[in-house]
């Protein structure tokens, strides 16, 4: 991805459509490898969502009402924290793969799953990135809530 050459050397301006198309083409060209690299963290992310759904919807549910929020999926703000570490882990593997940094890092070497080439790694950096991604999810939930409150306020004023 080349930045625009006519810009000042310190300021590189992104070309919006070039970035979008390059990202989609990269995903299509490297789909198989990226799928393998990100499979296990994505599996853990889906499993976390399923576990949270089970905690909320099982009968009888003992999820405190304080934790329930319909601005998230599953409907609890805990989902921001439960899924963020796995998303950050997947990002770490994909970004390392793109930059050719330590491509084999995180590979599980246990004999029983060695052939599946699963990857797992949790360290301070990934947890810090997870905190940033969790903040992002919380912000998205908050915006949904504010939007809904404004719509209710407008609707109730009529």
């Amino acid at each position, binding site marked *: 991805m080349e930045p625009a050459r006519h810009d000042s050397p310190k300021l590189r301006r992104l070309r*919006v459509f070039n970035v979008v198309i390059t990202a989609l083409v990269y995903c299509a060209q490297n789909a198989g490898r990226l799928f393998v690299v990100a499979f296990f963290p994505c599996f853990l992310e889906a499993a976390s969502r399923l576990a949270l759904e089970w905690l909320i919807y099982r009968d009888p549910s003992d999820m405190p009402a304080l934790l329930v929020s319909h601005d998230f999926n599953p409907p609890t703000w805990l989902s921001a924290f439960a899924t963020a570490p796995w998303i950050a882990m997947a990002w770490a593997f994909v970004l390392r793969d*793109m930059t050719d940094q330590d491509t084999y890092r995180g590979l599980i070497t246990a004999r029983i799953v060695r052939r599946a080439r699963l990857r797992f790694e949790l360290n301070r950096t990934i947890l810090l990135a997870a905190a940033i991604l969790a903040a992002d999810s919380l912000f998205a939930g908050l915006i949904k809530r504010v939007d809904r409150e404004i719509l209710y306020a407008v609707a109730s004023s009529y």
Partner: protein
Amino acid sequence: MLSQLIQTFLVATVSAWLGVMAGRLLIQEGSGILGAWRLMRGNRLRLGVIFFLLNIALMGLDHVLDPAKAWMVRSLTNPLSWTLTEATLRHVVDFPFGILWILTWSVTIGIVLDALEGAPAQSGKTATPLPA
């Protein structure tokens, strides 16, 4: 509809900024958040537009695939209330789309960081660069 678009743009913009911070942290372990913020100088709104467009594309794809996914789950189980079987099937059917979403975002962050820093993409793995 307008409020939905504004909401999507706002969320996409903040996600883009936080995503660049998280991505830079993951690539250059120990790099600061302020450094990532400075790196985005002059491109913050563009980043919002990039992730807004990606969001719209992925949400559109999800919308198109939704009836097929619902049909697949309903053809196997159709309970009146939430059951573990139905939820598991729903997550299994949705899994490839979940991976696609995570991959698209992380690859875009990688490409954005590459463009801003000129650091990654040494091997022939990246897509052919488009003319600037």
